[in-house]
């Protein structure tokens, strides 16, 4: 997503939030349209691909709907919405009896990951659907901790501070986790792209 797109998106979502707070309930459908894929993707990052992810994303939106009037604008709407979604995912993990590996938990993700020496061209060709599917599969193979920080940083362009707020972890933890996540993805991609011999 380009920077100008993000600015116009932020203006649009602020407008929709204001309209909702002024009693225009229908504006929530606009927010849902803007965020449905992204909230759903975040749920997938946290819980893994699952048949229930759309239902859980809907639960997250219902929680956002219920709490939106308490949103004071201290952070961006998306940061707040992802934090709400994190809580919904955490509740689901608790219900399933497995919270280990939740991106907000304090557990460390092991020893620092070593970055492989680059064998790629500086501007990799990622336009083809085939390559994207391959990258998507490699991201899905990462741990929930790594998937979440990669999504928030690389796709959402969230700052360290915002990621810490969303995942409810210290900024220092975000730093190390993000490095380890990128190093792990880099290593996987290096292997798989070498095998596939993609452009």
């Amino acid at each position, binding site marked *: 997503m380009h920077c100008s797109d993000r600015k116009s998106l932020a203006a649009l979502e602020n407008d929709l939030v204001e309209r909702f707070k002024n009693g225009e309930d229908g504006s929530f459908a606009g927010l*849902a349209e803007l965020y449905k894929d992204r909230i759903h993707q975040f749920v997938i990052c946290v819980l893994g691909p699952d048949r229930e992810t759309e239902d859980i994303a809907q639960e997250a939106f219902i929680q956002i709907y219920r709490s939106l009037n308490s949103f004071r604008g201290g952070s961006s709407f998306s940061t707040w919405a992802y934090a709400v979604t994190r809580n919904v995912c955490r509740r689901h993990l608790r219900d399933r009896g497995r919270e280990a590996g939740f991106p907000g938990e304090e557990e460390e993700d092991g020893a620092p990951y070593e970055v492989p020496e680059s064998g790629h061209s500086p501007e990799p060709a990622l336009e083809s659907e085939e390559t994207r599917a391959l990258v998507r599969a490699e991201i899905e193979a990462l741990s929930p901790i790594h998937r979440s920080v990669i999504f928030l940083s690389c796709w959402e362009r969230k700052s360290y501070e915002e990621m810490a707020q969303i995942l409810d972890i210290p900024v220092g933890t975000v730093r*190390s986790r993000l490095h380890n996540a990128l190093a792990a993805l880099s290593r996987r991609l290096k292997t798989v792209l070498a095998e596939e011999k993609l452009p």
Partner: protein
Amino acid sequence: MTCLTDEELTAHLLEETTPERKQEAQEHFHACSACRSRLSALRFAASAAAAVPPAPVSGDFTAKLMARIRGELTDAPVGKSVGLFTRLTAGELVFAACALTLFAAVFLHSGRGQVPSAFKTLYLTDGPATPVRLAALPSPDRLKPGVKPGEMYYSDSCRTAKCGL
């Protein structure tokens, strides 16, 4: 400048560093091929991840969501007040009301609450407490002065207690 740590490298990539540190790192990359290579590998991973858009949800996601919201939250003034009662369903509220009524009834009849006609007199009978004895009214000559039969409580007999009392 020495080689960048892992976290410094990532911070440089994501521009989470000060302009001074950024400048120092740039100068270091010119001189250090190892750090340049590490940065390049991280940059590749980041750009690959950024090129993959979120997985799309089904086409009727928003319509289903709004229908759920209308269905679940019509009765509750959503957003105006989010309290306990807005979170409970009608069935849960009925159950809570019944439980409260039952509790109140048990409380009052257990003697902790106010009972209009409290037991005032303990009447001890001779011999063991049989159903016949407990059901039978005592003879008037055994009533204490001023005690009315309706105010009496029939209890098990206790010769020792009777004597003691």
